[in-house]
């Protein structure tokens, strides 16, 4: 460190997001005050985003092991065994704060980042899903911030995924007041790789070379991890000033980077690989060194820059997108650079693996930063949460949009029209769902997306299309992403269990069993007692549900401080992504009724109540304090029953009951299949409206032959409630009846079209 440099002060440290105590600890680790480069690097690696300092202790309680797990938390992505020597890598990540500031680029680079995590472990990305939350858009004609954010985020996801040739096969979106100031943009990606060829990120081999490849390094995204990801959002004007910290994505660069990375791995030219995400080179290099228990010398003068006059600290913390860092044996460096040349990707040897255990940053000959790797990566203090259940409700009741005395028919149409339930077609039509030729079930065809696994039509080996080959099973993957934040807000423990059960139910409807789970914990400021309580309870629920379902957590992400100053905290939103396998994609379930005359049954331990339901929301009801008891074993048993029947080809359709209760589920089955139904729904719950619209876990609507439906009774409660047919949905109730034509249902269900003229 040059003596002439002016050392930053404790005030500078505070401005970068460190606390006074953390700054003092940094000084202790460094044996004196850190210089500018060192302070910048500590402030990022010790940020919530990188160090998980408020969540790490909780995350350690989650189940992470199971018979299918190949790679668990801690690597770029988790991976599960899917048979035939193949693994499915998957992970969900958030890009909430960047998207709140600049939705198009925020969402686009969110997709770019999660894709890099997948190919960083040597798996080819095969699918993207997204999970979005915005404020209310109920008056859909009026321009609003939520509409602007929705439009930008959807276009950004499409822009990146479509351009890179990875299908966006599913997702979910909710509109609720508490997300008004702080939208959520979570993206999940899946990849396929060979088990024997997966690569880890630990740097290894003293004297090996570090090669940085991909886009040039610029000033974009500087300080993103600490400024954006680890602090509450301020007012809109101040947030506009944060725009330079949002990165700009270039999917074409990433497409080349992806092909180049996969070919480098295929040829066995690299020892370790890591993408550059939050905190850029700082985080990537330090984490590779930490995992490998080695040191690293870097020379920033060798890094290809977009702007010539960047300060050393800027180079180290830049979040320029589409970059990867790899470790290469010296004799392979030229071959690596040649392959990068083939893909027209920049590359530069920028450093060396050392045995010092220190991260040394040089600018040419000059040493500009020198830190112990362990202090940087592992010594950030971890904080205990101080959970405190709030004595009074945190969230104001929603604005009523439906009269309390609305009749059943009016309520059904209002629910189908409501933004949380209406058809997502105007959104998912903006995504390529079919590139790579694996997509067996597209959005709105089934509860979960289904991909053909192997033999892969996109992988070179053609599927056998001969008459003899037609009957041969084609194994498939199924994936679902879900979380109803309002129910988690009502009861963080049980609401989170419900989210996990919902994902597993979606998999059951296509005939898939869970292999593993990923999660993105989106919460408010954990330093506040009530948020700490939400987080603690939610993680407890997540662990309990995943243990019971044998669907271990293989990776995930935490996004805290999701509150706007005016709007208060978001609903606690632990987004769950679950991946499952089905033995034969030919038999993958569908959600729509398809055969007139089929019987319809309600399956499972479904005990619906109106509290915390979508109907209660439309009617302006406050959240209840707690949800009903859940018998996870009974729910699981009904899922096993449905899964088995789908796999055996015994059901024409299967759909799980979620928002809007049984009546909405029935309407969705009618709409997806273009067929009406006549059913009787009485005596399931207390009162007519609860029978129709009450919500709770564990229920399915299935159709098929009446014998096949009754056979489900061996494992789960079954009630045959009616017949498929006609051009209307007619529901007889104890006290009355409800009827709506398919045309009326369609008209209500397509309300989101107005948002995308």
């Amino acid at each position, binding site marked *: 460190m040059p003596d002439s440099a002016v050392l930053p002060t404790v005030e500078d440290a505070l401005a970068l997001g460190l606390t006074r105590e953390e700054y003092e600890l940094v000084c202790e680790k460094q044996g004196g005050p850190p210089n500018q480069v060192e302070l910048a690097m500590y402030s990022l690696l010790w940020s919530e985003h990188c160090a998980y300092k408020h969540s790490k202790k909780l995350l350690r309680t989650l189940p992470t092991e199971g018979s299918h797990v190949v790679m668990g938390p801690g690597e770029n992505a988790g991976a599960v065994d899917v048979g035939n020597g193949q693994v499915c890598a998957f992970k969900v990540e958030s890009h909430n704060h960047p998207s709140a500031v600049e939705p198009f680029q925020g969402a686009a680079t969110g997709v770019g980042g999660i894709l890099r995590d997948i190919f960083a472990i040597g798996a080819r990305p095969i699918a993207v899903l997204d999970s979005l939350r915005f404020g209310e858009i109920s008056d859909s004609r009026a321009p609003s911030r939520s509409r602007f954010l929705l439009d930008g985020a959807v276009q950004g996801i499409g*822009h990146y995924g479509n351009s890179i040739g990875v299908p966006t096969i599913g997702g979910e979106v909710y509109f609720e007041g508490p997300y008004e100031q702080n939208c959520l943009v979570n993206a999940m990606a899946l990849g396929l790789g060979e088990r024997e060829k997966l690569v880890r990120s630990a740097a290894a081999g003293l004297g090996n070379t570090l090669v940085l490849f991909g886009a040039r390094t610029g000033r974009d995204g500087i300080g993103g991890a600490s400024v954006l990801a680890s602090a509450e959002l301020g007012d809109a004007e101040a947030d506009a000033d944060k725009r330079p910290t949002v990165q700009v994505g270039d*999917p074409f660069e990433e497409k080349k980077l992806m092909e180049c990375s996969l070919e480098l791995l295929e040829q066995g030219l690299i020892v370790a690989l890591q993408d550059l995400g939050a905190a850029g080179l700082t985080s990537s290099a330090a984490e590779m060194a930490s995992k490998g228990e080695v040191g690293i010398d870097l020379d920033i003068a060798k890094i290809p820059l977009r702007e010539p006059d960047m300060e050393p600290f800027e180079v180290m913390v830049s979040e320029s997108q589409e970059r990867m860092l790899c470790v290469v044996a010296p004799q392979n460096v030229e071959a690596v650079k040649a392959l990068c040349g083939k893909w027209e990707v920049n590359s530069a040897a920028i450093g060396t693996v050392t045995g010092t255990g220190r991260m040394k940053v040089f600018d040419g000959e000059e040493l500009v930063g020198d830190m112990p790797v362990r202090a940087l990566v592992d010594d950030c203090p971890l904080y205990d949460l101080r959970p405190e259940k709030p004595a009074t409700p945190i969230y104001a009741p929603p604005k009523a949009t439906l009269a309390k005395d609305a009749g059943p028919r009016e309520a059904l149409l209002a629910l189908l029209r409501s933004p949380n339930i209406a058809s997502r077609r105007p959104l998912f039509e903006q*995504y390529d769902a079919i*590139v790579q030729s694996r997509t067996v079930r597209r959005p709105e065809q089934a509860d979960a997306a289904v991909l053909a696994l192997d033999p892969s*039509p996109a992988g*070179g080996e053609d599927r056998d299309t001969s008459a003899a080959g037609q009957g041969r099973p084609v194994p498939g993957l199924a994936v679902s992403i879900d979380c109803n934040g309002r129910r988690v807000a009502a009861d963080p423990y049980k609401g989170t269990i419900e989210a996990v059960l919902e994902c597993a139910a979606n998999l059951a409807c296509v005939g898939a069993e869970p292999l593993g789970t990923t999660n993105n914990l989106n919460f408010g400021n954990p330093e506040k007692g009530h948020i700490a309580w939400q987080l603690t309870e939610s993680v407890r629920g997540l662990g309990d549900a995943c243990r019971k379902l044998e669907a271990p957590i293989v990776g995930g992400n935490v996004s805290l401080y999701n509150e706007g100053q005016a709007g208060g905290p978001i609903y606690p939103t632990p987004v769950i992504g679950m991946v499952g396998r089905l033995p034969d994609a030919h038999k993958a379930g569908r959600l729509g009724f398809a055969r007139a005359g089929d019987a319809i049954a309600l399956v499972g331990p479904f005990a619906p109540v109106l509290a915390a339901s979508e109907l209660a929301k439309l009617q302006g009801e406050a959240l209840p304090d707690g949800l009903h008891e859940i018998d996870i074993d009974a729910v699981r048993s009904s899922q096993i029953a449905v899964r088995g029947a789908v796999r055996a080809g015994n059901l024409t359709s299967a759909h799980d009951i979620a928002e809007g209760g049984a009546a909405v589920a029935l309407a969705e089955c009618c709409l997806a299949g273009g067929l009406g139904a006549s059913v009787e729904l009485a005596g399931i719950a207390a009162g007519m409206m609860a029978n129709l619209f009450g919500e709770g876990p564990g229920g399915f609507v299935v159709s098929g032959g009446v014998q096949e439906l009754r056979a489900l009774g061996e494992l789960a409660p079954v009630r045959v409630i009616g017949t498929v047919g006609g051009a209307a949905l007619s529901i007889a109730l104890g006290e009355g009846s409800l009827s709506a034509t398919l045309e009326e249902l369609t008209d209500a269900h397509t309300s989101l079209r107005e948002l995308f003229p």
Partner: protein
Amino acid sequence: MKFGVIQFPGSCDELDALNAARRVGDAELLWHGERDLKGADAIVVPGGFSYGDYLRAGAIARFAPMMETVIDFAGDGGLVLGICNGFQVLCEARLLPGALLVNANRRFTFRQLELEVLNSGGVFTQGCALGERLSIPAKHSWGRYHADGETLAAMDRAGQIVLRYADGENFNGSVHDIAGVSNERGNVLGLMPHPEHAVDELIGGSSDGLKIFESMRMTVEGVHA
């Protein structure tokens, strides 16, 4: 019968096209920077975003070394099929008349569509019946076909308007609902929808797109429907 499928940096659907072609014959990828067609009897210019398509869709790809060979190949009567971005490239290369503009709804849009065969005598559709409907998906932002009135009239007379969107299916606003056109000679076809994504009932519920590849095979092998 051997297909060659060009691979540009930024191509997305080249493996899909490769595998679709392999259902009716041999097929091999051709790298954009090379010039050798490796003995291919027919060329597929696939979908995607060649070179990122940041300037104008297909505007840079048309200058690729491999495209120079393909232009000569087409001039000699060789079969060239351009799908989506490939259609854009062929228009930029002047192998096909007209141009593709931004969709009327100004958004990337993915839909399974019904197409109608307007010319079943051609080398790409001889396996189809006149007026036959094909279920094939489309997915693009720049798919609004445009040509001036005189050109359109001449194309119509020459049977160059090979495929049209069925009524109500033309989401991109193409003139005369045009979905696919050929050159005057009939040996080059471009279309925005993706026949390579409709070759397997399991994946998408339709195998109608196979008829395009099958027709090409019949033409090359001298078989006639």
